[in-house]
């Protein structure tokens, strides 16, 4: 079975944050919760680069390892999902995650964190596919519809790639062969030579 992967091409990302907005709007993510964010380094200086970061759907995910109630699980295709009905909002996954992916909406009781929310790779959750409950808790299930995740689908510069890891790697490798990367990819002439 294919394994899914996100890849953000830093030579193409222009920090438009369209992926962030698409994700928030498409899944009706509450205010204060960001399943995806864009990080920019060296802003305003030559060599400025941006990258879009969300849950990396790690192979050996630390969040799954630390969850005290086993609310987080991994599908065969590598997508890491959370069962919000099992989650107790303890925040251990946030402490274990190197990428700050798990997010917590404010709960109602004593300012307690609500159930963890994170990038689902647009694959919904443990509820039945396309059910109202799934949509309410986790947002759209575009993977079950056969579509790529919203963020990658709408990325204007196609910097953000998502899908079968082998195909994503092929697309990126092809790009690097054509334009170079890092130092070699810098500048207008490289982009418009052909």
């Amino acid at each position: 079975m294919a394994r899914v992967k996100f890849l953000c091409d830093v030579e193409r990302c222009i920090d438009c944050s369209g992926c962030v907005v698409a994700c928030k709007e498409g899944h009706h993510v509450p205010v204060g919760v960001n399943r995806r964010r864009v990080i920019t380094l060296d802003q305003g200086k030559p060599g400025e680069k941006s990258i879009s970061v969300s849950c990396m759907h790690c192979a050996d995910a630390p969040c799954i390892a630390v969850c005290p109630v086993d609310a987080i699980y991994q599908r065969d295709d590598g997508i890491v999902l959370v069962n919000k009905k099992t989650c107790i909002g303890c925040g251990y996954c946030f402490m274990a995650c190197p990428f700050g992916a798990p997010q917590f909406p404010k709960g109602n009781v004593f300012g307690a964190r609500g159930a963890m929310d994170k990038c689902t790779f647009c694959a919904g959750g443990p509820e039945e596919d396309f059910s109202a409950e799934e949509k309410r808790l986790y947002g759209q299930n575009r993977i079950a519809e056969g579509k790529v995740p919203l963020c990658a689908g709408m990325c204007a510069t196609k910097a953000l790639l998502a899908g079968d890891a082998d195909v994503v790697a092929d697309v990126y490798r092809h790009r690097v062969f054509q334009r170079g990367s890092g130092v070699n990819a810098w500048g207008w002439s490289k982009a418009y030579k052909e």
Partner: protein
Amino acid sequence: MQRFVYSLFLLTLFLVTGIATVAVAQEGGALASLSVGSSADYYHNLMAVITGNWQEYGQMFTFLQSEWFWKVFLVIITVVPAVFFVHYMIIGAKHFDHDGPQIYFFSLFARIVHFIAAISFSLLVITGLLVIFGSFFGGGTFIRLARYTHLVSAIVFVLPCVLMFFMWLREMLPQLHDISWMFIVGGYLSKKKTPVPAAKFNAGQKMYFWFAIFGGGVMAFTGYVIWGMGADIETVRLFAIIHNVLGMGIVAFYLTHVYMSVFAIAGSLESMRTGYKPKEEVDILHSLYKYEL
């Protein structure tokens, strides 16, 4: 004429060197900006920005929480009671004459404070263990409720904790005879009723007291930060480790206290209800305690 040619030559020289200098400077600047653009450097910086110093406490927390914490807690809540069970079978409970003269040992105020502390502390230990073994209970509403109860109990526990500290501070100060108490483990390893060196509180109670007061303070502070994520992520990770490790010691002491009061000394729980201890018990277990009949 010669002067004119000479001036022109100098002017040209100035212009050429000037332009060359500017060009070199610009070239240098452009190259400098390019040199930081190496992919390896970029990703190195990027990972530092995205993941922070995960290797320090993040990795440690992930390893400890996934591999060790629940195992150690499981060992504590099985081995400690098992040892006490063996003790109960071999040596058994200490029985004292409850029909004889009684000594007023705990004031009403002390009993109320201790009662509040006992309830909230027990809830803290139980709900804490419920969260640690949350997967066993399937998580969800039940464990979420345990987490909320953990917070409420912690807030309630702070008050009796402070009161007990001032109420029993003098009697809980370590004394020389506590060392000899520890050498004979309070006389709990023999069936004989020989007076053990202890005043109002024995060395075991004192250890539990100081552990609960200072450990409780650390637990309250780290727990408060963990609850609200009220610090940077590195600190929260470290506090989560401290909270769990300290919790192991507190659970062990808690189980000991429960065994002593409920099983090891028959009828000892009554003294926390009525305030009276049998004279015989005081003479043996708190032989240095001065009382008036």
